[in-house]
């Protein structure tokens, strides 16, 4: 991460960083002393979302859908139990709907009201997903958002933006890249980026992985 990147994402934090840090430490100590929280539980929560639950989960789901037509059908019919087959379930993923990209249709997911996001398959959302620019722009100018991410879709491709305004969590099934015939599920999972499962990116092309 560059200094520039850091600056624009945390322009409000810089002057208050140590103050907020102290405040959170004090809060944790108050809540611990009162017996409301167990600091060891906080450590497990942090470890879970930093190391165990992240977009690698979703990449496995996508790669399975690309290689197993029956799984793909179950995923598109009712994603929550299908995803559960791979062991991913629970908080912020109680009601998941998978939406499929095709040559004619590109899907993008946003939550304009807060930051709803399918945690069990993608982990915690990135900073930009929670930011005002993304929440404001995605529903009005999704092609402009894609340009911010550095690519353009064919003008003939329709865009459907899914605003997560209730407890349904959307998850994009991107198109399998060309030139991947015979690839294993594990190899295919390496092509699946987090952004491709939000709809702000596309999977990596095979050359970038093998070459």
């Amino acid at each position, binding site marked *: 991460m560059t200094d520039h990147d850091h600056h624009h994402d945390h322009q409000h934090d810089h002057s208050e960083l140590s103050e907020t*840090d102290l405040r959170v430490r004090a809060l944790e100590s108050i809540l611990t002393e009162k017996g409301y929280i167990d600091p060891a*539980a906080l450590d497990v929560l942090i470890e879970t979302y930093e190391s165990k639950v992240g977009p690698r989960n979703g990449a496995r789901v996508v790669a399975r859908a690309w290689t197993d037509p029956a799984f793909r059908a179950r995923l598109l019919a009712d994603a929550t139990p299908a995803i559960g087959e791979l062991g991913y379930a629970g908080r912020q993923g109680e009601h998941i709907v998978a939406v499929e990209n095709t040559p004619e249709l590109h899907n993008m997911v946003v939550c304009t009201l807060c930051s709803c996001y399918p945690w069990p398959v993608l982990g915690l959302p990135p900073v930009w997903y929670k930011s005002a620019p993304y929440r404001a722009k995605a529903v009005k100018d999704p092609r402009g958002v894609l340009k911010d991410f550095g690519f353009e879709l064919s003008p003939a491709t329709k865009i459907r933006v899914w605003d997560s305004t209730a407890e349904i969590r959307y998850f994009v099934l991107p198109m399998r890249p060309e030139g991947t015939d015979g690839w294993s599920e594990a190899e295919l999972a390496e092509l699946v980026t987090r952004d491709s499962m939000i709809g702000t990116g596309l999977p990596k092309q095979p050359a970038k992985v093998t070459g």
Partner: protein
Amino acid sequence: MDGAHDMGGVAGFGPVRPEPNEPVFHAAWERRALAITLAMAMPGGWNIDMSRFARENRPPADYLAMSYYQIWLAGLERLMQERHLVEADELAAGKVLHPAKPVAKILTAEGVAAMLHRGGPTERAATKPALFAVGDRVRARDMHPPTHTRLPRYVRGHLGRIEAVRGVHVFPDCNAQGAGEDPQWLYTVSFSGSELWADAPDPLLEVTVDAFEPYLEPA
């Protein structure tokens, strides 16, 4: 409520700035803030809709000046103070000044995995038939409740089409106020870009929101 959190279509925020390979957290306090918030829901006993309202219900200038996890902290402090789990003078002093309130249960390290796996499903049994079916034309109500709602401003008053019927779910507008779950039919409603943004139409844009039945009227 019509707060600063309701950002769909708002102008002036500038471009989206991707941050390649960003870390899950950008400061140590963010880790603790997330974890404290998740853990406190158990002794606190509030629901997700109360949490969302506690975060969004603040002056727009305050909301926009805070980073994401600062908003979480502010919401958490509000929820705890409302229940007298922690008092304002304790937050100001940074230390315990009042006896703890008895709480039924706290989150233990051993209980984390089960708590996360259980989650909080919102689907409930239907007690009445759905008013709308896939393909029906509907209009999003032009409503501006002062309390929590999940109908974004940019679709209010606009014509849409029922894209999917999602079952019966906890109604946030009621649940956020502690007035019970009042489960309602939930629909995915699609709107054409030209219906929502007449001055900036993308002929191929379609936007969907998940709208509860009380948010909709036949059109």
